[in-house]
């Protein structure tokens, strides 16, 4: 064989063959690589299309499993020893704090990346053209991610853990019919205790990982079965260029994984995962806040009857799951915001969300007192039904406004409404995180 001059790309991938056919064969025959097709559409590789969010989430799941297994060797799921085993981990075990920090921050980041992934899939219409099942699967994955965080939260058995889970499981008992049974099962007693800790541990390290791995495999397989990720419709006589997976896709994935590894590692080295005082069932901390990603829900709870505060997100969740049925216009698939007008609608929706939500919070905090106005009515109506219906009516109004005044089509108006709902949710979360102080009173963070 004659000496070849190698490009830097070939050097990095020096073990891979450098003709297209053997590259394709490598992908098809490799255990890990074969989740990919042998060739991918070139436009699908644009980073500014997917932002790599699904891939980043997958890598985070990998980090979580690796560090989680390590943590299991040092953690003790008993009320007496859980907290000390974490303290021991933090101070005595070599790299104990580092492993815990990686696990903690990866879990937090995963909530962010899977949420952003959902937003990106929505904005590009990635749920269209036969992708309804994968959209639903994705929502299921998001629920799993939240369930992981909820169950993992209790394990350190510190004040934060104890009271967040107390509030979370009490919330369950407001669910009609099954709520009390599920909450009793999870708690295994009248309050958060040893049985609760053991239940949560089993769910966190065995039940959820098994389901997650199955569901993720299903999710990836569906992406391929749906003909790869969504793309704009090619024009009349246009042909979409296809390139081989090695190196074009694999290279991006490796680079993203490397960057993510460095970011997480540096973050974990410098920012310790929080650990508060040992759980004390007779004294909640003040303020007793939920984990940050549940703070939007917590803020809702300050304003609404628990049943309403749960019905509202539930309604939205069902609405989002049904999106493929609600927005069936297929010719705008693969285009961010559907169209130029859709982009405007999203911007406008976000704007009214960031303005209306703080106003509504202030109004309810300082001025509006529905139970005081109608003292004889049950709170289920005054703080439950009335605000719930008002919120839903607001959604209807905004959609109607986009259709009538904005002269948008159905698909674009949904983008505006979705943007309003998501920014409202994020704004509520930010209010809960930064503007609630002692006694849950409104305060300025600075």
């Amino acid at each position, binding site marked *: 064989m004659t000496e070849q001059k190698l490009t830097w790309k070939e050097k990095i991938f020096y073990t891979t063959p450098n003709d297209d056919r053997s590259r394709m064969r490598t992908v098809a025959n490799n255990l890990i690589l074969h989740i990919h097709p042998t060739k991918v559409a070139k436009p699908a590789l644009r980073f500014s299309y997917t932002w790599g969010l699904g891939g980043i989430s997958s890598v985070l799941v990998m980090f979580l499993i690796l560090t989680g297994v390590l943590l299991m060797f040092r953690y003790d799921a008993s009320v007496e020893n859980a907290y000390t085993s974490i303290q021991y981990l933090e101070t005595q075990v070599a790299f104990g704090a580092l492993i815990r920090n990686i696990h903690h921050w990866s879990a937090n980041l995963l909530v962010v990346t899977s949420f952003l992934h959902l937003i990106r899939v929505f904005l590009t219409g990635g749920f269209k053209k036969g992708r309804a099942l994968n959209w639903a699967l994705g929502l299921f994955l998001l629920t799993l991610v939240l369930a992981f965080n909820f169950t993992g939260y209790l394990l350190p058995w510190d004040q934060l853990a104890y*009271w967040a889970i107390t*509030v979370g499981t009490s919330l369950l008992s407001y669910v009609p019919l099954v709520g009390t049974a599920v909450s009793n099962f999870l708690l295994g*007693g009248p309050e958060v205790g040893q049985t609760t800790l053991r239940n949560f541990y089993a769910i966190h390290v065995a039940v959820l990982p098994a389901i997650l791995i199955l569901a993720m495999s299903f999710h990836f397989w569906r992406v391929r079965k749906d003909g790869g990720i969504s793309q704009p419709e090619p024009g009349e006589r246009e042909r979409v260029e296809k390139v081989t997976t090695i190196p074009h896709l694999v290279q991006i994935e490796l680079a993203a994984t490397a960057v993510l590894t460095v970011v997480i590692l540096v973050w974990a080295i410098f920012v310790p995962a929080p650990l508060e005082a040992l759980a004390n069932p*007779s004294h*909640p901390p003040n303020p007793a806040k939920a984990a940050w990603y549940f703070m939007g829900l917590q803020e809702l709870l300050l304003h609404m*009857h628990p049943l309403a505060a749960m019905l509202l997100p539930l309604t939205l969740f069902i609405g989002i799951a049904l999106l493929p049925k609600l927005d069936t216009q297929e010719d705008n698939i693969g285009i961010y915001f559907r169209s130029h007008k859709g982009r405007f609608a999203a911007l406008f929706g976000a704007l009214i969300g960031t303005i209306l939500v703080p106003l509504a919070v202030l109004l309810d905090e300082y001025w509006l007192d529905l139970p005081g106005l109608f003292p004889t009515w049950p709170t289920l109506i005054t*703080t439950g039904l009335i605000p719930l219906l008002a919120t839903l009516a607001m959604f209807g109004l905004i959609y109607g406004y986009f259709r009538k005044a904005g002269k948008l089509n159905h698909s674009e108006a949904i983008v505006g409404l979705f943007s309003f709902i998501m920014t409202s949710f994020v704004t509520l979360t930010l209010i809960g995180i930064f503007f609630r102080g*002692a006694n*849950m009173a409104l305060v300025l963070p600075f």
Partner: protein
Amino acid sequence: MTTQENNLSRRDFLKLGIGALSALAVLEMGGVSLFFMQPRSLVGEFGGIVNAGPVDSFPAGSVVEFPDGRFFLIHAPDGGFLAVYSRCTHLGCTISWEADKNQFFCPCHASSFSTTGDVQNPPAPRALDLFAITIEEGQLLVNTGSITQRDRFTTDQLTYA
């Protein structure tokens, strides 16, 4: 012809049999798991009856906390007793007694309750839950296994010595 039909129906029979047996097996395993996962009975928790002490050790108008029994003993100005569960009726945080403001307060979502356990400030949806009180030979016995929910305070909830 007939043998073929017979063959087919035998195959169908076996298929049906396997299907039915599998379904039965799944049901059984499901049933076993359900029973296995059953929470143990919740009746009579918190060690049951707590002796709070002699009746006359609580001056009228006093509020005394019993952290292990998870309740506050309230001696109303008119002489009646109430034992309120220290669990907030909103979402289960532990309330504390603020003597200077004469109210119970929950730090989780800022509910407050009056000396009789009535809601002063939502989001709590109903007054604090009650434990049953009996008085035997001058001793106040609080049954922490028997929880009563109520919407608001009424005088018939008081127990007199």
